[in-house]
Structure formats: structure tokens, C-alpha cells
């Protein structure tokens, strides 16, 4: 018997219907984008700000939020902490949805979507491009996540032969599930290098961009597992898995400390520490962002606080906001293409992104109810 079970229950709950309406509004604007007037008709993208929230939120931040599967694969299979296994399947599902919809966002943000396949033709590949690495590697990882999640579906459908075959190569799939995010999450940072002076000096670490991107991805990956598990406990009235989550919190301490310390050292070496206290908009954003990383460090370093579910949740949310802000700040908020350009997302642009998020949550809710995703409670 499987250790996982479908949650059951009604599909069309009130929250589900609200989400569905948001999704429909998103679809309306998607129609405008693809059929009526192009990206210009729905977005505020311009020649200075060629990347707006569709890239920076949906892909840069959305895939980092989807790093739960990555963080747990590292913990369970590389560091051999089997006790975290119950958290794996829901995390892999959330990762699959986050990445798949990030991929879909890349498609509707793609100016020449009808020839998207050009990036998959080896004759076109430019090996100097971090974007090539991101495009190919994210695509490969979506397939890997689908394979990692396939057992839930195969169990449900009773296809045990296929399940057995999949289990034989599972070690390779999981190894790729650790390697691929390491590659493309760091490349998301590398994209910032070529943007040069347009990236604010407080965020332009050049050679070290991939390291910060990777650290922030792992921090957000661990945080999202804590956040999702806590939300599931509250939302579905399940027993909270606080001791497990507290253990994950500990794993983040080193990552958080590394992120903060290396960042300060880089700014010191670059002679840019003064910019933190310049008092301008960018310095405020930097201080706020740093505070969002320091607060969880303070909580997690305390032996009593770090064992309380509510405090853990605060730490997780703070890290998610901090990581999201780090990417928002670097790619968009303090990004400066030069005089004469400004950007704030339009309402339709925001609605398309919200529609995608709504779709993601809807599929998650349906999947945990129909498929064996959540771990069987021991004392249900």
C-alpha cells in the first residue's frame, strides 16, 4: 500500500470558483494578446523595459518559488535525510506546476511565439548565451519533474508495470532533478551580467550573479516547502508537521548566512557599501530586502522560536518575500535602461499573471484531492 493517499472531498469549493473567475479574466486578456493586438495591446512593455512582470515574476520568481522539489531532492537524496520523504511528493507537484506555468509564461511573453521551436534546433544554438541554457534546461527540468511526479498518477491508475520500470531509473531522474535546477537557476543570475550598467550597482555582482541566484533559489525552495506544508495543515485541517519543518529551517541557516555575508563582502570589495546608506530609493529597497533575510535568520537561530510552527511560517514568508524582492529589485525595480524609460505593469498584464497563479493553485487543489500526493497521516 502506498504511503500517500488522495485527500478526497469536493472539487468545486468557493475558493476554487473565485480562482476560476480570476483565471477566466486572465484568459480574456490572453486572447487580446494573441489575437487582437499583440503584447502592446495588453502590456506596458517598452523599448527600455523589454522584460516586465511576465518574465521577472512568472519566470524569475515563479520558478524560484517552484524550487521546493529541488531543495527537498537535495535534502532527501543527496544528504540522505529520509525522514523528510513525506514532504517530497507535494513539493514535486508544486514544483511541476510552477515550472510548467513558468514555461507557459515564457511562451506568451515570447514575441515570436509561433516559432518557439527555433530554440530547440541545435543549428541555432549560441553557446555564449545564458538564455539558451535557461531555455533548454528549464524545458528538460519540466520533463524531469513530470517523471518525478508520474508515480502518483501511475499508482492512481494502477499501472504497476510502468511504475516498476520507472523506479529502476528513478535514481537518474532524481540526479537530474538536482543538477538541472542548479544549472538554470544559476543561469537566471548570469542573465544579469550581460545587462551590465543597467543593473543597479547594489545588485550588479557580475561574476557572482550565478551564486546569488542559486543561493536565493535554494532559500526560496526550502521556504516554500515550509509554507506549503503549513498552509496544507491549516487549509485541509491536517496535523502540522512542525518538527520536520523545523529541521528544514535549520538547513536554511547556512544558506541565509552565506547569502548575506558574501553579499556584504562583494559590496565591500566593489567599494559600494556607501550606496546602502545613500538614502535613495535603491538603498531603501536594499535595506528592506536585507531585513527580510535577517528576520528569518534571527528566528531560526533561536532554539525555542525555530521549533514553533507560527514562527517558522513567519520565517518562511519573510524569506520568500526577501528572495522575490532580490529578483524583482535586480531585474526590474532598480533596473535602469537609461533616461526616458519607465515601466509599471498594466492592469491586463497583472491580470494575466494572476490568472496563471490562479490556474496553478486550482490544479494543485484538484491534484491533491484526486491523486495520492499528501502523506498518509500516522494518527489520523
Amino acid at each position: 500500500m502506498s504511503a500517500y493517499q488522495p485527500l478526497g472531498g469536493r472539487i468545486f469549493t468557493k475558493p476554487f470558483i473565485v480562482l476560476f473567475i480570476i483565471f477566466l479574466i486572465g484568459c480574456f486578456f490572453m486572447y487580446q494578446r494573441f489575437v487582437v493586438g499583440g503584447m502592446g495591446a495588453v502590456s506596458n512593455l517598452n523599448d527600455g523595459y523589454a522584460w516586465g512582470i511576465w518574465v521577472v515574476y512568472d519566470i524569475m520568481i515563479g520558478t524560484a518559488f517552484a524550487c521546493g522539489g529541488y531543495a527537498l531532492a537535495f535534502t532527501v537524496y543527496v544528504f540522505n535525510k529520509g525522514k523528510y520523504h513525506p514532504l517530497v511528493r507535494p513539493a514535486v507537484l508544486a514544483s511541476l506546476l510552477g515550472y510548467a506555468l513558468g514555461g507557459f509564461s515564457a511562451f506568451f511573453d515570447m514575441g515570436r511565439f509561433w516559432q518557439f521551436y527555433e530554440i530547440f534546433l541545435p543549428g541555432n544554438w549560441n553557446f555564449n548565451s545564458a538564455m539558451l541554457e535557461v531555455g533548454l534546461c528549464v524545458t528538460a527540468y519540466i520533463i524531469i519533474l513530470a517523471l518525478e511526479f508520474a508515480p502518483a498518477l501511475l499508482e492512481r491508475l494502477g499501472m504497476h508495470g510502468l511504475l516498476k520500470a520507472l523506479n529502476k531509473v528513478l535514481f537518474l531522474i532524481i540526479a537530474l532533478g538536482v543538477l538541472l535546477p542548479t544549472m538554470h537557476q544559476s543561469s537566471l543570475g548570469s542573465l544579469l551580467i550581460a545587462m551590465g550598467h543597467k543593473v543597479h550597482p547594489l545588485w550588479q555582482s557580475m561574476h557572482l550573479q550565478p551564486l546569488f541566484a542559486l543561493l536565493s533559489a535554494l532559500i526560496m525552495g526550502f521556504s516554500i516547502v515550509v509554507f506549503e506544508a503549513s498552509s496544507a495543515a491549516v487549509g485541509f485541517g491536517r496535523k502540522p508537521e512542525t518538527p520536520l519543518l523545523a529541521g528544514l529551517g535549520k538547513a536554511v541557516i547556512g544558506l541565509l548566512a552565506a547569502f548575506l555575508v558574501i553579499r556584504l563582502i562583494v559590496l565591500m570589495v566593489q567599494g559600494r557599501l556607501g550606496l546602502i546608506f545613500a538614502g535613495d530609493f535603491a538603498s531603501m529597497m536594499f535595506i528592506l530586502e536585507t531585513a527580510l533575510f535577517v528576520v528569518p535568520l534571527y528566528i531560526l537561530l533561536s532554539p525555542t522560536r525555530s521549533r514553533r510552527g507560527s514562527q517558522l511560517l513567519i520565517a518562511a514568508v519573510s524569506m520568500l518575500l526577501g528572495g522575490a524582492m532580490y529578483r524583482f529589485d535586480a531585474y526590474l525595480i532598480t533596473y535602469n535602461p537609461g533616461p526616458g524609460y519607465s515601466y509599471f505593469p498594466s492592469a491586463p498584464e497583472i491580470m494575466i499573471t494572476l490568472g496563471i497563479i490562479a490556474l496553478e493553485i486550482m490544479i494543485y487543489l484538484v491534484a491533491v484531492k484526486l491523486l495520492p500526493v499528501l502523506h498518509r497521516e500516522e494518527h489520523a
Partner: protein
Amino acid sequence: MKRRDFLKLTAGGTAALACGVAEARPNLEANDNAIGMLYDSTLCVGCKACVAKCKEVNNMPPEIDGDKLAWDSARDLSDKTHNVIKVYKNGTATVKDAEIDGYCFEKRSCMHCVDPGCVSVCPCTAMRIDAKTGIVTHHPEVCIGCRNCMVGCPYNVPQFEYDNVFGQIQKCEMCNQPGVERIDKGMMTGCAEACPTGATLFGTRETLLDEAKRRMALKPGEIYNYPVGDVRKPDKHHEKKVPEYKQHIWGEKEAGGTNVMHISSIPFDKLGMPPLEERSAASVAETVQHTVYNFMALPAIALAGLAFVVNRNIDDDDDGGDA
């Protein structure tokens, strides 16, 4: 996996990484015979004949600002404007080429970088450097529209047709794109041909750089015979008093240099040029990319290590049975 094993693996990976770092990718080298242009802001009278000629050659519509129907009033580069003349104004704006209370003109068009960011970042090789002419060309037939070229260009040159469902990137290709091919036919770029004062001068990068250096060395106030058209075989010359040039040839060295160079009597940061260092951001990005992905060796080693460790730990789970 034991912590010690992991540390060993990490140390091995770092050592491999360190070996790769040794080979930093320097800036690409300038092609002296590359086709280029020299824009001398002090010669420009703002007539915008170059803007009109550019539209004619590239078959692009005028941009009308409000009710000014008499002329093309494009204010900046756009998907319909490959070349534009902008104005610098300060205070009373009465003295030409004076930084204080003065005004001057500045051209915006593709700089045709020696080490172009757009070419470096494009995943599909839709941006290329022409080996013979040094022109940075665009190839929409392989472009997916990710617009990395736009964020990767220090000058915000590539423009996307946002208002077209089936839009494409637009940029200056020195009037040598298929169907136009002015350079291949031995002609000048449209803007250089149209320029009545020689403010936009045509030539090779080498001859234009020589001309720019010659002007830098002139004494303000003396008379210089300025060439018009192609610096190698000018259509005509005209005599003019030499202004006080800033001793700075924009594009000689900036981010690896450009084939379109600018000189002026007003500092370039005042004219909206970006704060660039000599090393191109593209060369740093490629150094990082090639260090990590050289022959895919590092990822391959990492995958082998991970597969080994994961395989052992999955077995552990079977034995321990807590999975």
C-alpha cells in the same frame, strides 16, 4: 551521503571550476576594415535629412507627434525609426555646442559594437556580426522574440514591434540587409549619404578613427576642411572653424569599441550615453558561461556524482524503510 563525501565532491568540483576560470574571454577584437560611421555632433545642424533618408531606404512610416503633420517627429528609436536626431538643451539654449546655456544635436542609431551584447546573449544566433563588414545583423527567421537583445544592448537599440501580434525585432543594419544591400553595392549608408554637413561620415573603422584623432588634435578656432560623405573619397569638403572638442572618441574603447563612433564638444554622459567601462559585459558573461559549461564537463561530472550518491541513498531508503 555523508557530509565528508559531499565536501570532497564539492572540493573536486571547485578545483575543476578553478582550472576553467584561468581562461577569461577578453573583449572581441576590432575589425579595422569594418564598415562604420563617425558622427561629429558639432557639425550636425539638426536638419534630420538622415532620419528621412533612413525611413525611405528602410521603407518605414513617419512617426507623427500630435498635429505636427509637416515632418517626421520621431523622438527616439522605435520599431519604425532606426535612426533619430535628438537635441541637448541647457539653460537659455542659445549657443551651439556649449554645455551651459547651449544646445547641440546627438544621433541615436545602432553603434555596431565590436563586442555586441545583443549577439552574445541571443540564444538562437538571430543576432550576428558580419565577418566582412562588421555589421551587426538581425535574422528574424530564427528569432523567438525573447528580447534578451534589448536588455543586453547597452544603448537600447533593438526595438520590438509590440503592436503587431506577429511582430519582430527592428534595428539598423547599415542599409545592408537583404533587399537593400547598399554596402554590398558599393554605396554608403542612407544617413551618411543624406547628411549635407558631413556630421555623419561614412568609412571604415580604421579611416574614421584616424579622422576622429585628427580632429581631436586640431586647435579650437583654426580652420579645418571637413569632408562630406565617404571619408576615403569625399563628395566635397567645407571649411569651418574647429570647435572645442572634448578629448573623447566615443566608441574607440567603450565596452570593446564600436564601429559607429561619436565626437562632440559636450560630455557624452550629458548626451545620454551609458556609463560603460572598457571591458564589455558580454565578455564577462561569456567567461562565466564557458567556465561552467566548457564541453559540458562540469555538469557531466556532477551528474555522475549525483547519480551515484542518489542511487545509494534510494537503496538506503529501501533497507531502512522509512520512505
